[in-house]
């Protein structure tokens, strides 16, 4: 593999990996607070892309109106997932929310299938057409923007968690929900908010990936799986770790395809995830939890 091929693989991998990371931030947000995740995160990514495409390309709405609307609707959907598929089970100390969130994702996918159709659609973006040439390689603005947005959100999230009162309240819920409640923190409302935020992150990922990919009811499945792999690989209890996990996965995939072709790339990248977890079960950047007795 030459230098140009390596740089090209790094750029490609960084773009795709940031998408995984951005979607995986949703897993981090809810896990850090409630020790639960929304396995329908991939469906929420799809919902963001489908809503934006429908509003902009089919209804002729301005992107400046359509994107905030899509973000809001995805946030509401994700909040609803928490209300319907997570909270009732957590209250009964049941882990059935795992299956319930998957089921809601499938329901959403089928609703979109019947309303939007199964035909993949193409969403154009001026950011994809514009770009810069670096050493004979053309990089589109969208490819540059995706990692910037991903890491900015991860950084912002980490800062909010560590430095602000809201962030500390969120972490307090994670450590001891009962004590947090006694301290006046509205735990249920805060957990709903975390789920809504996770939905917004997935929506951003969906909107940004749509011009690079195709918009369809089934587009979220593979991203959801890979985003979860990225979250586990990076360490699900660290915002920066999750983003880094996404980058590692994306870049590994791109390098593997460049070096060996695409036939074995998927197999190798998931095998690598298993090997890393066998050696470091908390993920690359995760920290081992301390149980105080």
């Amino acid at each position: 593999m030459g230098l140009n091929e390596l740089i090209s693989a790094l750029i490609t991998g960084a773009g795709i990996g940031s998408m995984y990371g951005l979607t995986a931030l949703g897993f981090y947000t809810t896990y850090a607070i409630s020790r639960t995740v929304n396995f329908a995160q991939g469906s929420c990514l799809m919902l963001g892309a489908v809503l934006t495409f429908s509003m902009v390309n089919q209804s002729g709405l301005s992107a400046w109106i359509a994107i905030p609307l899509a973000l809001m609707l995805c946030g509401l959907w994700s909040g609803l997932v928490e209300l319907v598929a997570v909270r009732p089970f957590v209250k009964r100390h049941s882990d059935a929310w795992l299956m319930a969130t998957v089921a809601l994702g499938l329901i959403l996918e089928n609703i979109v299938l019947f309303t939007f159709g199964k035909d993949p659609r193409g969403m154009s973006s001026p950011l994809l057409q514009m770009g810069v040439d670096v050493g004979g390689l053309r990089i589109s603005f969208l490819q540059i923007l995706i990692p910037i947005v991903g890491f900015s959100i991860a950084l912002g999230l980490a800062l909010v968690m560590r430095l602000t009162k809201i962030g500390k309240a969120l972490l307090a819920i994670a450590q001891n929900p009962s004590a947090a409640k006694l301290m006046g923190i509205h735990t249920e409302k805060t957990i709903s908010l975390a789920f809504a935020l996770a939905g917004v992150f997935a929506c951003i990922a969906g909107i940004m990936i749509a011009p690079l990919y195709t918009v369809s009811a089934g587009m979220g499945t593979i991203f959801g799986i890979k985003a979860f792999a990225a979250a586990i690989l990076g360490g699900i209890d660290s915002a920066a770790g999750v983003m880094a996990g996404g980058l590692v996965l994306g870049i590994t995939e791109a390098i593997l395809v460049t070096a060996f072709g695409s036939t074995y790339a998927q197999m190798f990248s998931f095998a690598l995830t298993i090997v890393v977890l066998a050696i470091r079960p908390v993920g690359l950047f995760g920290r081992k939890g301390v149980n105080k007795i």
Partner: protein
Amino acid sequence: MNNKHVLNICMAASVLTTALIPSLGRAQDIKVGLVAALTGQSAQSGESISRGLTIAIDEINAKGGVLGGKKFVLVKRDDESSPPKGVTATRELISSEKVAALFGGIDTPVSLAIVPIANQNKKPFIGVWAAGTNITKNGATPNYVFRVSAQDDLVDIALIEYTMKKFNAKKPGLVLVNNPWGESNEKGLKAAAAAAGVTLAGVEKLEQSDVDVTPQLGRLKNAGADAIILVANAAPGAQMMKSRERMGWNVPVVSHWGISGGRFDELVGPTAGDVHFIQTYSFYSAPTPVSEKVFGELSKRYGVKTPADVIAPVGTANAYDAMNLLALAIEKAKSTDGEAIRAALEQLEGYQGLIKKYDKPFATAAHEALSPADYIMVRYDGGKIVPVK
């Protein structure tokens, strides 16, 4: 028996007769099945095949049908491009709907899954799009699978020849979808390249879910590829074209026809027209009485104004001719029995179709109605398929 009873019996008899007449009529019908992608990324292919079959069936029925007045009825099933769904639909069409024959859709993996069922149940299965070589060359004797479409091995020879001739390519690279259809073409293209004395720059595989194909294209570029030969359906093919555009690599692209089964032009954007791809028919061809008749029906029923408005034209053209050939075979066989239809198809004489004048289209060992002489090269131009000048 009083008058009231007589009246009741008469009323019951009239109701029964009214109810029975349509079902007696239905019993006279000859059902033909279509198992194709009616939804999903290749939905346009299913729609175009349905149009061709429907126009042909309505014409045949308007002329009085076959076997002394029996009318054809088309029963469609959506395989969603999934082999298991295609198998389920085929079994249902054979056992429940009792179809006399089956038509297939765009997806080679689905058709390959249907082939053994057709042969086991002795039901003629006519492929009107999927080009996988093994669909017709399936090793069964007798073989109930026929095709009015292109065949991969022959398409592959045509693609290599066109790439060399049109773009003066010396070292083309292959980008193939990672499924049985891609594998079928890999063998064919390698054999065709070897026969033409061309060295391939490399063979790259494309997954349906690939977002970025830059790494695969980068490998081909570094291997010195001076043209790309693409074998994929619309969505993965579009991913390749978008990656090519992002790389700023203006390499010529010659493609098999899978890309024309969906919204390729919308998915790719401005560079969709850079791809030259193969077809078996274009409504831009010199008009004939048959083409004028079919185009007239397309205009009347589907609002088609110009030849460029015809969606996925090969689906309509292949299906139209295939349905007419089947009707001729049923008439010749004087039966809807699968074995008799197969034998009659193999003994058909001439037929003036939409694509060409068929002269003995099939024989016992030759189940392909079309040959490379029927292939043409086209490209997208503003969302419409036009011949390459």
